[in-house]
């Protein structure tokens, strides 16, 4: 998970982000937001560097990262999969869909495949309840999905 190695250029990027918020510890959430949009996720080394820049304890940074579900410490795959588990999708079998993805990819929800190709997450309602159950892969939407279709869909991604 924390195989991420901090390079000098990364340090500079983080320094710039923190400076843009005046190194103010009160702006920690904004700093983390910006950083995640830059790096895709928030590995340990990055959190330590942010704590260093803002002069706060790394435990505090980690506390905020783990509190907000938006922040993630695992990188997203090349094709991030989001299964809607909102009410409508749930009653129309979203759970079976999630299980099928887990079986096919051999990862947990929140995980990423070893080759970094797919990551799997759940989200709550994409506003397309008429198409329930709904799955997003990258920007593409799959509606009225059934478990047996999943293998084929995954194979269509290179």
């Amino acid at each position, binding site marked *: 998970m*924390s195989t991420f190695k901090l390079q000098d250029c990364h340090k500079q990027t983080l320094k710039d982000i923190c400076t843009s918020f005046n190194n103010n510890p009160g702006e920690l959430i904004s700093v983390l937001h910006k950083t995640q949009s830059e790096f895709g996720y928030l590995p*340990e080394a990055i*959190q*330590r560097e942010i*704590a*260093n820049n803002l002069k*706060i*304890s*790394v*435990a*505090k*940074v*980690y*506390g905020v990262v*783990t*509190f907000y*579900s938006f922040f993630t410490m695992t990188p997203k795959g090349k094709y991030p999969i989001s299964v809607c588990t909102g009410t409508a999708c749930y009653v129309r079998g979203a759970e079976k869909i999630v299980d099928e993805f887990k079986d096919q990819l051999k990862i947990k929800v929140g995980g990423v495949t070893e080759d970094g190709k797919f990551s799997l997450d759940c989200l709550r309602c994409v506003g397309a309840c008429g198409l329930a159950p709904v799955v997003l892969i990258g920007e593409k939407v799959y509606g009225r999905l059934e478990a047996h279709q999943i293998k084929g869909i995954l194979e269509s991604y290179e």
Partner: protein
Amino acid sequence: MGNIKVKIDNIEVEVKRGSTIYQAAKQVGIDIPVLCYMNLNHMQIENRPGGCRICVVEVEGRRNLAPSCSTDCFDGMVVKTKSIRVLNARKTVLELILSDHPPKCLVCSSSGKCDLQELAQRFGIREVHMVENAEVSTYRKDASPALNRDMDKCIMCRRCETVCNDVQTVGALSAVNRGFMSVVAPAFEQDLVDSPCTFCGQCVAVCPTGALTPYDDTPMIIRALADPTKTVIVQTAPAVRAALGEEFGMNPGTLVTGKMVSALRSLGFDKVFDTDFAADLTIMEEGAELLDRITRYVNGDKEVKLPILTSCCPAWVNFFEVYFPDMLDVPSTARSPQQMFGSIAKTYYADLIGVKREDLVVVSIMPCLAKKFECQRDEFKVNGNPDVDYSISTRELASLIKAANINFDKLEDEEFDLPMGESTGAGVIFGVTGGVIEAAVRTAYEVFTGNKLNRINFEELRGLAGIRTATIYFGETPIHIGIAHQLGNARKLLNGIREGRYNFHAIEIMACPGGCIGGAGQPLHHGDSSVIKARYEAIYKEDTGKAIRKSHENPYIIKLYEDFLGKPLSEKSHHLLHTHYFDKHKI
């Protein structure tokens, strides 16, 4: 500003604007139960996240119940603290907490000292209606040489977080995760030994449950005492005698030196010695180092490192190794009294009585949890055999005495054994903030000037203010001294030095409030500063009552140098009584 009037349970009370309902109630003797709330008066630190909701009360005109610890009074407020609605709500809150708490109270090391258990008793909880799977462990246990974390028992009061961050500025702990999984932990949920934790243990001292507990070596000591092939000797730190009595219902500040010695002898220790002896030895070495640096400085040596920092407090040593690695050459290299004792015991004393190092077991009774960590450091071992085998706290000694069926009140006073039980008043005052530096001054003054001191008490170095400064004249030479207790104050002082704002020759630092008397291994004082004050006065009383009050006049210390060490800072001293520090910067 100005005062406002509120009515609590039909009692009129006038309070300062900005007071909470809890404070107002306290003023008229109404004791609202609290759990997460903590008030450490002497540190001006309050923890009131308003999270546990045990302290809820009814406020007229307000729809929901209000947490009294974090709700401000307003003029004309009418409060009910014991209506049926309030009592039912408190019971429900307790049941909810208990539904997610392991039910094995009987075998919990905090049993009998647990705030949650006490509340469950007070509210007569006999059944928990909401049953979560509280028996199933959700968190990995974390064991360190000083303290254990069992987060299944954490109720998220966050007192430890407040102490670790706001008081000690260590920053090892923070609330992490959310919902049922939320818990107080180091970053990345690492073990404490991999975090910046200093093992000061102040988090343990405020934990209301058994989530944070000391690592306890008592069973190993019992085993050693029962082993006929082992010679088991014990040393007692200065602060222990001023607090141990509290565990047996005595008033804070009762000195129980003689009873403590008698209890230890009756527990079966072969010899009962005193860490104060080693404190005198520390003064010989640290004082010599101080004088060496000052003399070189006075003679114009630009290389000399000043100020010299004391190094007796193991939590403080851990703190500067993590946070001030650029200043590792500033502290004195003298080992702490605990470790000097162990080192001398396993060389000089072992030879004296003709016992092999491996067959001599050295136990220490300390007011401290960081001492447990310190005695396990690799640099204090010879071929894997530690100089001090086991360190237990004042509270753990009290438990051992109770378990052994010793009637502490009725014990006759006894004397320490010789040679390592003889000590001076200077050794005793190591237990309070300012004491180490006063002890050093008593000796350094006489050595530096060649004159006898007219007075022995240095009032200007005493007191309980967090940071203190004073100038003492060694003849014509002014010596500037800084003193800090609690690591947050230490950090302020050190930052000042880094930035060149201070110009001290010597600095004493203690990690705990009031010094060792407020250590995390002492009977719990719950933020009551009068307890600290009473222990503080007891220590100076013990000092005043001593026949000899300057370390260099201790006849057994003089003999130790004549027979074994040579002189302070000799090669042998360096080998046995000094140490070196490591860069443990962790960010």
